[in-house]
């Protein structure tokens, strides 16, 4: 049952974003990351926030899910904000207590930093983890890496390994769970004692798990050979990645946003516009 939770990242759907070519989504995600780091003025952040709202709207992913996705980065979010607030010593002094001094610039930078992290997490998870199945993601990575083939790198093997790993994550989690229960039934105590004792309690899990995975790998490779697998050469694919007009539009929109963000930056920093 734990496997449901760990792989609960992907929300199947049929939106424009779900259907987009994974390679394109990866590229767009990189552009978005670039845009988020390039953004420095409030207006550019507003642009990006608008994009995230649009992404939520188009992909039909619940905003609550996106907010929940922030949970793991919450600590980083507040920690960086805290550092920004107390270490920045420019602008007007707003408040002072003991050795802590809060300046207006500090508040502003903290706010921007929080925006940056939140936008980064929201946009990449909306584009990738929430709307792209792990297998499509590996296909996308393989596709993007394919120029490296000319350099003699075996991108097919890499992609096959990734996709087998994805396939077996839930199976192995289940297996670990089973072995843990079986050892607990023999009196293994995982929850008490010091660090060394706890580490020692892991041996009854790791040894059988390792033995089991070696056997699994053996059987799987045998099954693959039986199904005439012999590497990427001469192999066709049921699902070939295809770039559609839809993808091109998405890409253009994204480049447009990046351009807008950069323009906004130039306007604020070089021409001294107020925002």
């Amino acid at each position, binding site marked *: 049952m734990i496997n449901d939770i760990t792989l609960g990242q992907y929300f199947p759907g049929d939106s424009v974003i779900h259907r987009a070519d994974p390679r394109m989504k990866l590229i767009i995600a990189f552009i978005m990351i670039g845009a988020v780091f390039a953004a420095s003025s409030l207006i550019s952040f507003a642009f990006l926030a608008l994009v995230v709202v649009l992404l939520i709207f188009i992909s039909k992913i619940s905003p609550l899910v996106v907010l929940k996705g922030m949970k793991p980065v919450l600590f980083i979010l507040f920690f960086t904000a805290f550092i920004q607030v107390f270490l920045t010593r420019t602008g007007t002094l707003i408040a002072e207590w003991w050795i802590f001094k809060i300046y207006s610039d500090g508040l502003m930078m903290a706010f921007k930093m929080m925006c940056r992290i939140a936008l980064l997490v929201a946009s990449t998870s909306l584009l990738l983890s929430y709307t792209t199945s792990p297998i499509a993601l590996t296909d996308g990575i393989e596709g993007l890496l394919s120029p490296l083939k000319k350099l003699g790198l075996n991108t097919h093997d890499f992609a096959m390994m990734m996709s087998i790993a994805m396939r077996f994550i839930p199976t192995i989690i289940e297996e670990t769970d089973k072995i843990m*229960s079986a050892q607990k039934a*023999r009196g293994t105590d995982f929850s008490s004692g010091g660090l060394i004792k706890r580490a020692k309690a892991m041996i*009854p899990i790791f*040894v*059988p798990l390792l033995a089991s995975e070696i056997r699994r790998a053996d059987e799987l490779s045998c099954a693959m050979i039986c199904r005439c697998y012999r590497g990427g050469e001469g192999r066709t694919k049921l699902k070939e990645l295809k770039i559609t007009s839809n993808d091109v539009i998405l890409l253009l929109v994204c480049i447009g946003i990046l351009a807008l963000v950069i323009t906004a930056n130039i306007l604020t920093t070089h021409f001294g516009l107020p925002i």
Partner: protein
Amino acid sequence: MPLSLENVSYIYGERTPFEHRALNDLNLTFKDGMITGLMGHTGSGKSTAAQMLNGLLCPTKGRVLLDGCDINESKKSRYEAKFKVGLVFQYPEYQLFKESVWEDIAYGPRNMKLSEDEVKKRVNEAAEFVGLTRQMLGKSPFELSGGQKRRAAIAGIIAMKPRFLVLDEPAAGLDPAGRDDILSQICQYKNSENSSVIIISHSMEDMAKYCDEIAVMDDGALCMYGTPDDVFSQSKRLKNAGLNVPQITELMEKLYNCGIDVSANVYTVEDAAEQLIKLYGKV
């Protein structure tokens, strides 16, 4: 003293999109000194129920009582329940990990903090019960054959001398003779140690042969309970609970449906033969 589940409910992944109710107000008592068979189709909750019995899972609602005490009362009682109720999982051979079979069987007893002499005694006894030779005990568990590994894993639980021994499909994947060997060894163990045994299995033929009482689960609750005769003579109810009936019962049912005057509530070859011979004499 009996081991009982009292109004036990259990929900997997509560408050997630994958919430699943595995046990639904289950009431079930396993009597002392008996071999009780626990049956049910895959997903009926029988494996979840088994993990309740030794405190591996804690009921969402309800109590698990051993000697009238709630095993989940304290952390300590929950831990100790593992030694009073020994649980052998399905395909237990995958849990072996020590450098020798002997050491692996000794793992449980050592966790009980028994004296070294007592551990030694118990390991040797348990190995004898499951038919492992001295020579096998010195080997690495990974050198044994599939069937021998299974025996070693069962011995690892038997060596803890649990009052209740719970086995989930102990004969799965074994050939006919292997099945009989393991099941009759479990019977022998029960008789000589005066302990109680709970066997989870899909095989009605095996259950009919070895169990004193049968409990049938469906949908996370108890749906039938009684002696093998009581339970297996109700083939319709068994089928409704998603269970396979023995080949013999299936055959008699087919005859009954053709309009031949036989009872479909037969599950042994001898009873069916008797009925058919009698009927043939009458026609």
